[in-house]
């Protein structure tokens, strides 16, 4: 049962939610709300943006300034919001389709700019809402409605992508580690720059039943079995890491933040006017 502080962040009038019983997305929403509550964020100054898909319904249930945008585009809406009003705390939630497929370009450019937005990726390795089609994070060999003979193209490592593109805080957890999710989202929001928290979650309905993970608990157990901390992974060989999920903080560094740079640019432009 969520705490009173967390319940206060929910639009319970709009429940029941649309997620399947046992879906991992609720674990992530709960972790996000615990993070927001414990950081003392104000609902009137907190923006939650989303794209399209199951993940995108999350903002509707959160009692804040929420925007449900188009597929893959939430980061660019969020960029406009943050640049328009830098006082706002902006969190962007998106699925693997939003982030790694249709919105991949926006993702790498948000990383490059290092704009002060926290992107939470709900990576369930499948297009759930549309009925179980393959996504850019579906593992090789897995089955999907559009990969009936098994996936042949390798998945993206979104944390590596984000780190390479310039994000300043990058971390990964699975829904089997809810405390880590909360901790990473908190650090992401506190980081002055673009933060990426990739959460491996499950879609037992669309991914699981085609891949011998039909019950929610099968997925949670699998996440527990295959999770390897970054510290351990650093000492492992690539072949030992096959099929594992590396969890932990992949990047934590400082780089100039975009909006701060823009506000300085305004000062320079105004100096020239005077």
């Amino acid at each position: 049962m969520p705490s009173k502080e967390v319940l206060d962040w929910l639009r319970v009038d709009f429940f029941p939610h649309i997620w399947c019983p046992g879906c991992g997305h609720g674990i992530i929403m709960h972790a996000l709300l615990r993070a927001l509550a414990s950081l003392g964020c104000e609902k009137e100054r907190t923006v939650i943006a989303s794209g399209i898909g199951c993940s995108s319904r999350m903002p509707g249930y959160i009692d804040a300034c929420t925007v449900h945008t188009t597929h893959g585009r939430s980061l660019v809406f969020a960029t406009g919001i943050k640049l328009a009003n830098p006082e706002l705390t902006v969190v962007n939630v998106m699925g693997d389709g939003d982030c790694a497929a249709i919105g991949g370009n926006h993702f790498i450019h948000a990383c490059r700019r290092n704009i002060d937005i926290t992107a939470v990726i709900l990576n369930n390795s499948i297009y759930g809402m549309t009925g179980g089609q393959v996504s850019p994070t579906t593992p090789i060999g897995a089955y999907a409605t559009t990969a009936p003979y098994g996936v042949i193209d390798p998945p993206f490592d979104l944390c590596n992508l984000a780190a390479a593109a310039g994000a300043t805080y990058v971390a990964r957890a699975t829904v089997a580690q809810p405390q880590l999710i909360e901790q990473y989202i908190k650090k992401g929001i506190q980081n002055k720059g673009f933060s990426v928290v990739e959460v491996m979650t499950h879609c037992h309905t669309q991914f699981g039943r085609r891949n011998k993970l039909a019950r929610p608990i099968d997925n949670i157990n699998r996440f527990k079995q295959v999770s390897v901390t970054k510290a351990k992974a650093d000492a492992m060989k690539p072949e030992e890491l096959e099929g594992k999920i590396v969890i932990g903080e992949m990047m934590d560094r400082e780089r100039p933040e975009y909006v701060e740079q823009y506000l300085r640019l305004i000062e320079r432009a105004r100096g020239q006017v005077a």
Partner: protein
Amino acid sequence: MAEVAFWQGNKAIAMGAIAGGCTFFSGYPITPSSEIAETLAEELPKIGGRFIQMEDEIGGIAAAIGASIAGRKAMTATSGPGFSLKQENLGLAYMAEIPLVVVDIMRGGPSTGLPTRVSQQDVMQARWGTHGDHATIAYAPSSVQECFELTIAAFNASERFRQPVIILGDEVVGHTREKIVIPDAGSYQVVNRKRPAVNPDDFVPYKPDLSDDIPPMASFGDGYRWHVTGLTHDDWGFPTDEPSEIETKIKRLVRKVNRFREDIVRYEVFYGEDAKVLIVSYGSVARSSLRAVREARQKGFKVGHFRPITLWPFPDEELQGLASQVDVVIVPELNCGQMLLEVERAVNGKAPVVGKSLVNGELFQPSDILSAIEEVA
């Protein structure tokens, strides 16, 4: 004392945007509209505004919508291929009722077409380019002066009606340099969106005022919490499957503009009173037409000119009144006959309507239109 300048149309659109209250621009480079972005990249920071070059055309419109949700008057600008890319999020702004100005400086199409040459091939894309029903407001400037003034009008309309408004310029208007009289600040009206009058706990974000069918709009960050979505939604902004709520929402999106048609529609008539031949043209073509009409008058032909300034809503009733007194209507256009269909609808059989199409990347010469007049007169 109004200042006189020698500006390009694209610069006049950029400066008109600032005059209309724009403090946010996001876009992506594309010929022949890039000067709008270049001007605003320089000018917006000077007034504390924001300019951002996005990674693509889609980001260009999406960031502008985000900025508008956060309370800024926002604009993006593009040309044909980019206008196509922006259509999905244009639809989101219609559905979520977010004020926004979108400039399309038309070039030849389809596809990459003629990047540096003029056309008027996007006039139907402006009306129906995004999927789903909505009302469209689109202005077609035909001079640098109008680029400035109609951009202010576009911001005013988008703020008043809570929806995107389109400036349909064309390459010739965008790149023509000519004299402009810059009106003094304060000499023109600047409209701002209606704000909620209730306290945040009583705010129903999509509950329209009965007087105008338009809901007051809060901004993210000003104390109100609300939900924005492209899904069909109820007065609370939440997705709905209830047929009566769906019907109410979509009908209102169309009605909130249509019921104020008289306030929006703009047109201009030259030599209308005794005209027997009527030219209907807009944008840069209207300039060739007007010259042709003057020359024809000198030759004794009774020719008039009707120029829709709003292509959407189309000034159909106004055109019909004039068409009932003429023998023939000629519609020169830089496309294969797009507004021709609207003119035929408006004229409604009162006079024959003849289309004159040019799609070779050039502007009509006045002599082209003069010979069309001589053929029918």
